[in-house]
């Protein structure tokens, strides 16, 4: 009987030990946390870097897609990134030719910053010419339709016999872009 009891106890102890070992083997979380404490800072830093990096690499295509959508939108807006006087002169010349108008004068102001953060640029251009009333209207329309962003703040028309003398204030706009983008 004593032998049986002894065997039972040893068997129970053995089962208990095996159970503990199995628990330790499979339930690593507490030990993981415990072990984490000693190298917590290092682990935290590296894990954070790894997490960000792997997430970025996995989402690369999504980032690229987002970027291309934004580039497309910016391109669609067709905003000049700088104000070029030669470009303005060229555009005005084309429009006036189209409408059989000879420009008497074109006056340029200095480039001025606009928008609340001064990120945009603008230039005021005053155009004087004599023309037929309808040609003048077509000229104004063509200016408005121009691919260049132009606004017409005011117009002064003076009728002389069958012609009109027009003084037109135009505003040319540009939004500079950081170099290397797009």
């Amino acid at each position, binding site marked *: 009987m*004593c032998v049986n*009891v*002894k065997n039972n*106890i*040893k068997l129970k*102890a053995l089962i*208990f030990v095996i159970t*503990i*070992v199995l628990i*330790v083997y499979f339930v*690593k979380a*507490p*030990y*993981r946390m415990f*072990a*984490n404490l*000693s*190298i917590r800072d*290092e*682990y935290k830093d*590296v894990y954070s*870097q*790894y997490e960000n*990096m*792997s997430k*970025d*690499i996995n*989402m*690369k295509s999504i*980032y690229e897609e987002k*970027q291309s959508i*934004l*580039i497309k939108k*910016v391109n669609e*807006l067709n905003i000049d990134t700088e104000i070029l006087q030669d470009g303005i002169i060229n555009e005005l010349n084309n429009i006036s030719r189209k409408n059989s108008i000879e420009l008497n004068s074109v006056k340029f102001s200095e480039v001025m910053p606009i*928008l*609340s953060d001064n*990120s*945009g640029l603008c230039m005021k251009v005053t155009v004087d010419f004599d023309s037929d*009333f309808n040609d003048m*209207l077509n000229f*104004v*329309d063509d200016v408005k339709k121009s691919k260049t*962003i*132009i*606004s*017409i*703040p*005011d*117009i*002064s*028309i*003076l*009728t002389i016999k069958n012609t009109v003398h027009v003084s*037109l204030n135009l*505003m040319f*706009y540009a*939004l500079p*872009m950081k170099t290397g*983008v797009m």
Partner: protein
Amino acid sequence: MAKILSFEINNNIKIIEASIKGEVLSVLRCMCIDSVYVKDGKIIDMDGAVNEINEKLKSRGIKTKKSIFLINSNSIVIRKIKLPFLKKSSEVLSMLQIELQQTVSIDLSKYRIIYELSDITYENRIPYAVHIVYCVPVILVSQYTELAAKLKLKLLKIEIIPNCINALYKNNIKINGGVLNNNETAAFVNVSENFVSFLAANHGICDFYISSYFKESFIEMAAESLSQYRYLSSATADNLFAAQITKFMRYYYSVSGNRSIDKIYIYGCNHKIKEEINNKLNINSEIITKISNLSETVLPDSFDLGKYFNTVLSLFSRDKGLKINTRKLKLKNNYGYAAVLLIISAASAISFGYFNSRAAIRNELSAMSSYIEDRENNEINSAIEEIKSETDYLKQYLQQAEMLLMTKEDNDCVDTNILREINRLKPIGTKVTSIYSDKDSTQLECISSSMGEVTMFFSNLKGINLVDSAYIPAIQSKTGETFSYSIVLKLKDVCKREK
């Protein structure tokens, strides 16, 4: 060298502390307690005996815990039983119990039974085994176990006096330099002041034990006229011992069937008995003064082999002795073992878990670091960072662009449609000399031929969808033929923007 205490309890308590190295026994200390708490091996007062022994051990500074207890009591029943030869000890034991029930008038449930195989004989080619059976009272075993527990000693075994004699033969221990003869029948007589015991060994197995205790010493008894010692003509102490031994021998002869004892070994205190035995009984006798395997170099001064012979022999016995009721002890040991095992296992498991997890985390860290430091991954990551940064910038740029377009819209104040309408609605006799249009209003300078045309033109202008309101500040006519005037038009779109 392990130190062991050996206790022999009879009518006194004999204790020796000895150490055993190989086959050699060294007696370190010995003591005898003339106790009133024990009688014929039985403990009459447990607490008294415990106190006595404790005090003695304490006074001698003995701290040894391992112990052997020797039962030296007349209450041990010895029988010779012949059975068909059986190999399994359990079968032998059960057969012996059956036989004992028929031959011995005792309650066997109150006895522990141990046996020795004495001889094997063949009858009609059937082997028979002759067993010497020792029946030890359970109460003695329980008492000795309790005594050991109360003395806080580690009880190794409980031995009985016949087994000590058997140990002499089994271990080939020489007495006084002579080898014991297995074929002889030898008697071992212990003679002390008021005690005499008689043990007989046949074929190296003790098969008889008897003892006698006298309240008065033999010297006192010798002084009296004792008619019961008829065997002797004069009643000296030695004569009385010899007479008692003779009685024991007769008894032995009657129960064993043996008709001769070849040699008598005498030990104890009374050495003069040897002469009496030689003279009166005509049996070769010898006083035990020396036994092999007992170191003589370290014996204490007070040590007398005759006195402590049984106590010493109990240490030579290689038998397991009586099975002690150690269930609780074993259970306790097993629980202790299990607890220690669990603690060690738990500690190992925790350490293993900790280091394993730490190693796993280190590996993970290493893997993550490799991933982070990989050149290709770094290039991809840099490109992605650039894309993200550009994306953020483009978002901001788009917001700014929207604001710029709104500003452009705000500043675009000239509408050709209104100019066309003015030109279309102008009456024939009316001439518009100048037009000025800006954010606030559109102002016309006009000359009309009649007031009617002025009103017609004015009302026509007011009818234009784009015009919110029209206003003529003044009309002048210097000649009375033409009317010059100005008209201020507030356009709806301008108004909306202002609001």
